[in-house]
C-alpha cells in the first residue's frame, strides 16, 4: 500500500496560541479515516492547512509523495486533493447542474478555455449527470443552488467535492445539522461516492464515525493522541479520558 497523505510534525500558531502542535499522521491509499476531537481541538485548522487555505508554520505535508506546503488551494486540488466545508460553500446563484459542471471542468482538462462550447462537451455532461444521479439531485438540476433545502445543499456540497474525481477526499462535518434520517442518507451517499478513494473526514456524530471509518484519529489540543481501528479507539482509556474529560464516556462510546 502506498501513502496517500503524510503529515509530518505540522505546526500552526495564531499569535501566541499554538493550535496545531506537531501533528503527524499517515493515511494509506483507499483508507477511510475519521478525525474526531472536542471543539477547538484544531480539526478545521488542520483541514485548512492540508487543503492550502492557510499555511503551516513548521513541518511538512506530503501528498502522493510530494510536499504541498506553500501551494495555493487550486494547485493542491490539481494534485488530487478535494475538500468540502463545514458551512455550506456552493455557488448559490448557479443551478445545481452548473455547480457540478464548474466542479468537473478543470479535472477534464478544459482549464480557462474560452474556445470550447460548454454544451458541446459530452464528457463533462456525462460526468455531471453521473454525479447528479449519485447525490440524487437530478430532478432539481435547474434549481438555483441558493434555494435548495439544507440537506440538498449539503448533498450538493459533497457532489461538488467529489465531481473532480480527486483521489483524496476531505469532508468537514458532512452531516452537521442533519436529522437522523438525513444523516443516514448522507452516510450511504459518502460510502457510495468514496468507493476506491481515500477519505479523511471530521465528524462529531459517532454513529457516522463508527459506521464509515476504517480507522479513527483523535485530535486533542492540536495533537493526535490516538490513531487506531474503531474497536481499539472505543476501548482506549486515554481517549475517553482526554476526549470526554472522563465524564460521560460510556454514553457516546457505547
Amino acid at each position, binding site marked *: 500500500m502506498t501513502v496517500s497523505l503524510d503529515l509530518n510534525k505540522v505546526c500552526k500558531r495564531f499569535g501566541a496560541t499554538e493550535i496545531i502542535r506537531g501533528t503527524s499522521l499517515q493515511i494509506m491509499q483507499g483508507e477511510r479515516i475519521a478525525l474526531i476531537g472536542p471543539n477547538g481541538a484544531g480539526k478545521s485548522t488542520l483541514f485548512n492547512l492540508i487543503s492550502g487555505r492557510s499555511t503551516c508554520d513548521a513541518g511538512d505535508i506530503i501528498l502522493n509523495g510530494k510536499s504541498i506546503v506553500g501551494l495555493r488551494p*487550486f494547485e493542491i486540488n490539481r494534485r488530487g486533493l478535494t475538500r468540502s*466545508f463545514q458551512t455550506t460553500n456552493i455557488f448559490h446563484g*448557479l443551478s445545481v447542474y452548473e455547480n457540478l459542471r*464548474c466542479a468537473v471542468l478543470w479535472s477534464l482538462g478544459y482549464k*480557462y*478555455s*474560452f474556445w*470550447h462550447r*460548454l454544451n458541446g462537451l459530452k464528457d463533462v455532461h456525462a460526468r455531471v449527470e453521473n454525479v447528479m444521479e449519485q447525490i440524487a439531485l437530478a430532478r432539481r438540476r435547474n434549481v438555483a443552488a441558493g434555494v435548495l433545502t439544507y440537506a440538498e445543499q449539503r448533498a450538493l456540497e459533497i457532489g461538488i467535492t467529489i465531481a473532480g474525481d480527486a483521489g483524496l477526499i476531505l469532508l468537514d462535518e458532512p452531516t452537521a445539522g442533519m436529522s437522523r434520517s438525513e444523516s443516514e442518507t448522507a452516510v450511504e451517499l459518502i460510502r457510495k461516492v468514496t468507493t476506491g478513494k481515500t477519505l479523511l473526514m471530521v465528524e462529531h456524530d459517532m454513529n457516522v464515525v463508527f459506521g464509515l471509518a476504517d480507522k479513527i484519529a483523535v485530535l486533542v489540543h492540536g495533537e493526535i493522541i490516538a490513531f487506531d481501528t474503531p474497536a481499539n479507539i472505543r476501548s482506549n482509556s486515554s481517549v475517553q479520558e482526554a476526549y470526554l474529560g472522563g465524564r460521560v464516556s460510556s454514553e457516546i462510546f457505547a
Partner: protein
Amino acid sequence: MTTHVNLTRWLIWMGFAATLIIAPLVFHSGASLSLLSQMGTMMILGLSYNMLLGQGGMLSFGHAVYSGLAAFCAIHAMNYVGNGEIWMPITLIPLIGGVAGMCFGIVFGYVTTRKSGTTFSMITLGIVELVFACSLMLPGFFGGEGGVSTNRVTGKPFFGLSYGPQIQVVYLIAFWLFVSTVGMFAFTQTPLSRMINAVRDNPDRAEFIGYDAQKVRYLTLVISAFFAGIAGGLSAINFEMASAENVSAIRSGAILIFTFLGGIGYFFGPMVGAVIGVFLTVMLSGITKAWQLYLGVFFIIIVMYAPSGVAGLMMQNFRVMKYGKFSRIATCLAVVSIATSIASLGIIIGVEMLYHLSLESGNGSEMNLFGWTIDTMKSTGWIVAGVLLATGAIAFTYSRRPFQYAWRTVNAEIDDLIHKGNA
C-alpha cells in the same frame, strides 16, 4: 426541446440582424443616424462592461480607460493611414482599437484583478484617475486639452466604402456590433465564462475545484477590454476625435449607469441600457437643462426598486404573459402607471419651473413647457404642478397595494407551476 430552443435562438439573431439593417433606413435623418451610431457603440461597451459586472461581479469604475485609450490608438492609426505610412482599410480600424484595449487590459487588469470586491472597485478608480492625469501630462499621445483628431475619409475607398456619408459609418458600427455581440454571447457559453460566474458567487470555493480566481478574473477582464477597445475604435471613427473626456471617470460612470439601468442579470440588458442611456443623454439634454437630474432619479429608482433593470422588468412581465396571466395584473398595472405618470408630470413641471427661475429668469419669467406658456412668477403653474403631484401621489398610494398583491399572487402561481413541472 433543444431544437425548439435553437430555433428560437436563430430567430432572435436574425431579428437582431434585420433590425440593424432596417433601423438606419427608417431613422435616416442626420440626427437619428448620429443617435444610432452612439447607441451601437454604447451597446458594445455596455455588453463588454457586463462581462465584468453582471457575469463576474466586478464593479469597475474605470471601464472607459480601455475604450478611451483604444480610441486614441485608433485615431493615431487612422492618421498613419492618412499620411500613407501604413496601409489599412478603415473598416478594420476597430480591430486596432480592440487589440489596443486588450493590451491595456493585460497591463491594468494585472493590477486590478488581483483583488475582488470593494478593493477591485477602488483600484479601478485609481487607474482611471491615473490615466486621466496622464492624458494631460502626455500631450504627444493624448493631444492635451484639445485632444487629437483625424479624418476618417482617407486613403482609397475600400470596396466602395469611403466613410464620408454617416450612413456608411452607421452600417460599419452595425457590422461590428453584430460581430461583437455574437462574440460576447459565444463567450457566455464557454468554460471560462461559467467559471467567472462561479468566481462571482464564491471565489473561495472556486479555488478548491482547481481554479485560480485571480486568473479567471484577469482573463475575463482582458477579453472584456478587447471588446471595449472595439467600441473605442468605432467611436474614434464616428467622432473623428478623442480627448481626455474619453478616458475619464465621468465616462466610466456613464457606462456603469447605462449598463445597470438596462439590467446586469440579462445578456441583452446592457443593449437596452445603451438605447435608453444614449437617448436620454442626447435627446433629453437638448430639451431640458435638468436632464441629469431626471437620469439620476431614474437610476436611483431602478437601483432601489428594480435592481434587475429595465430588461428585468420586461422579462418579468413577459413571464406573466407567457403563462397567460397578464390580464389579471393589467388593470392594476395600468392604474399604477397612470398614477405614477401624473405625479411625474407634476414633478417635471415643478423642476422645469425651478430651473427656469434660477437659471434663465434674466430672460423674463415666462417659459415654454409642453406647448404652453407658463409664467414662473405667477402661482398658476405652481398650483397645477402641486395638484398633479398630490393627485398622482394619492392615487399611487391607493393603487400600489392592490397591484403588489395581484403581482405576488400571479408570480407565486407561476413559481408553483414551474416547481410542479420540475418535480
